[in-house]
């Protein structure tokens, strides 16, 4: 039985880490982007961003002022036993979000959608958001992702049903057109981690896109060569556009393009995009049955990618 105080503290530390520390894979992608950048001003911008992100870890302050929608992913062993059960896990996650907000690791960004009421702690109807994946074992893996307002609100996240008649060309055209529109003047905070969901109902495609944007290791490839080719082709195509950091010109417009898929209906192919901003915030922790908490380098949501 994993005690409440253990998983509540692990949740809090995971939020804090996600908000204040850049992941190793994102850092590596930044370093590569700096190396290949040819535009002098864009290079300075990338360097300044990386420098600021490294200072955030030392100063324990947020990587970006917009600390985003608080989103949790739980990969749960079938025999995992939590004190108070999963209802208490979600209560503990809410308490941890409120505590992280009070400490200034998160901004009080979540508001009532109609009245604009600000509860001041990022807790409200259906927020934070929880997603579960069940596997063999008795552990739980916690991933916290912060989905930024810019990346979500300016058209970087959308869907279209593509006809089988249009196939891969239709999917790729939809993605390129969407990304160009959404990255104008830096709206989605490029260079982006672009997630693409193909197949399923529209919400399945949208969830896959979001998970591909927030939980895939930057630099990983889809194991199926057909999907890996789409990732590679779109990565090259989008980085040939000259959108650059914050849309003001430069050689790096995306840090990664990650595709995930589901089988779909004979009637059409739901295709969704989810764009994560350049800071691509997330952190993951694992709690074993004996209560041992360990930091994870990567969310492990899609296995080894």
């Amino acid at each position, binding site marked *: 039985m994993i005690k409440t105080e253990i998983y509540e503290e692990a949740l809090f530390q995971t939020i804090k880490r996600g908000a204040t520390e850049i992941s190793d894979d994102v850092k590596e992608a930044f370093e590569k982007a700096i190396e290949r950048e040819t535009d002098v001003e864009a290079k300075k911008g990338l360097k300044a961003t990386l420098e600021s992100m490294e200072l955030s870890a030392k100063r324990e302050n*947020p*990587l970006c002022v917009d600390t985003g929608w608080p989103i949790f992913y739980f990969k749960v062993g079938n025999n995992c036993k939590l004190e108070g059960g999963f209802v208490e896990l979600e209560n503990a996650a809410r308490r941890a979000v409120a505590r992280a907000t009070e400490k200034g690791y998160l901004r009080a960004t979540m508001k009532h959608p109609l009245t604009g009421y600000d509860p001041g702690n990022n807790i409200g109807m259906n927020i934070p958001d929880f997603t579960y994946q069940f596997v063999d074992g008795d552990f739980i893996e916690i991933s916290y992702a912060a989905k930024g307002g810019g990346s979500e609100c300016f058209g970087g996240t959308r869907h279209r049903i593509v*006809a089988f008649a249009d196939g891969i*060309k239709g999917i790729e055209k939809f993605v*390129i057109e969407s990304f160009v529109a959404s990255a104008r*003047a*830096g709206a989605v905070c490029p260079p982006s981690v672009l997630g693409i969901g193909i197949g399923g109902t529209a919400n399945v495609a949208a969830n896959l896109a979001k998970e591909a944007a927030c939980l895939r290791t930057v630099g990983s490839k889809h194991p199926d060569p057909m999907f890996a080719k789409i990732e590679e082709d779109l990565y090259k195509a989008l980085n040939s556009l000259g959108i650059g950091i914050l849309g*003001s010109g430069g050689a790096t417009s995306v840090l990664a393009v990650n595709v995930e898929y589901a089988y779909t209906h004979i009637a059409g192919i739901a295709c969704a995009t989810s764009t994560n901003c*350049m800071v691509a915030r997330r952190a993951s922790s694992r709690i074993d049955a004996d209560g041992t908490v360990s930091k994870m380098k990567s969310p492990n949501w899609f296995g080894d990618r």
Partner: protein
Amino acid sequence: MSVYHLNGPLTDEDVKKLKLGDTVYISGECFTCRSRLQKYIFDEKHTLPFSTEGRNILIHNGPIIVKENGKWKLMSFMPTSSIRFEKWGAKSVDEWNLKMIVGKTTMGASTMAMMKEKKCVHVSPRSVSPNLWIDSIEVQDVHLYDELGRIEAAWFFKVKDLGPFIVDIDAEGNNYFDKLDGEIAERKQKALKDLGIEEDFEFTKLY
């Protein structure tokens, strides 16, 4: 491209010399604004409880500020997307006599027209680097904290060499991103072609 270190309050002469793509650093007194403030003033018809005369630089931003030992402490700062506030952009420039808006994602046609008329510029960052900015910002005061909340209140900042920002709308109503749009559109056609997607490709209309 030139680099300018400007001191607020800004004059027409200060902003008229700025060209698209120039780099600016700003010093002086500024205030923060998000949509809740503009809605409160322009839609809900309240009076702005302070003068913008010596404070004509507006920063689109919802900062993270906590109280530590009785003093405000700025935890994080990053200019936010201006286009969201387009509805009130022209009115803000006009009624508040703004000379500079610090934001992101530039602004739309109606604000740009008013900026040209009133001589005002829009500037944006080219990085997400809160930690390189917060040491240049002193939190002086806050207005409408109870009415609008901690994030959307009007915070008064005194800034010292805050930047670099790129001039993306000049005082003549020109936009840096309009030029870039054309270049990106051309490269997009080539990228689509390289993927085997012909120029005349049309989506099968499903709805």
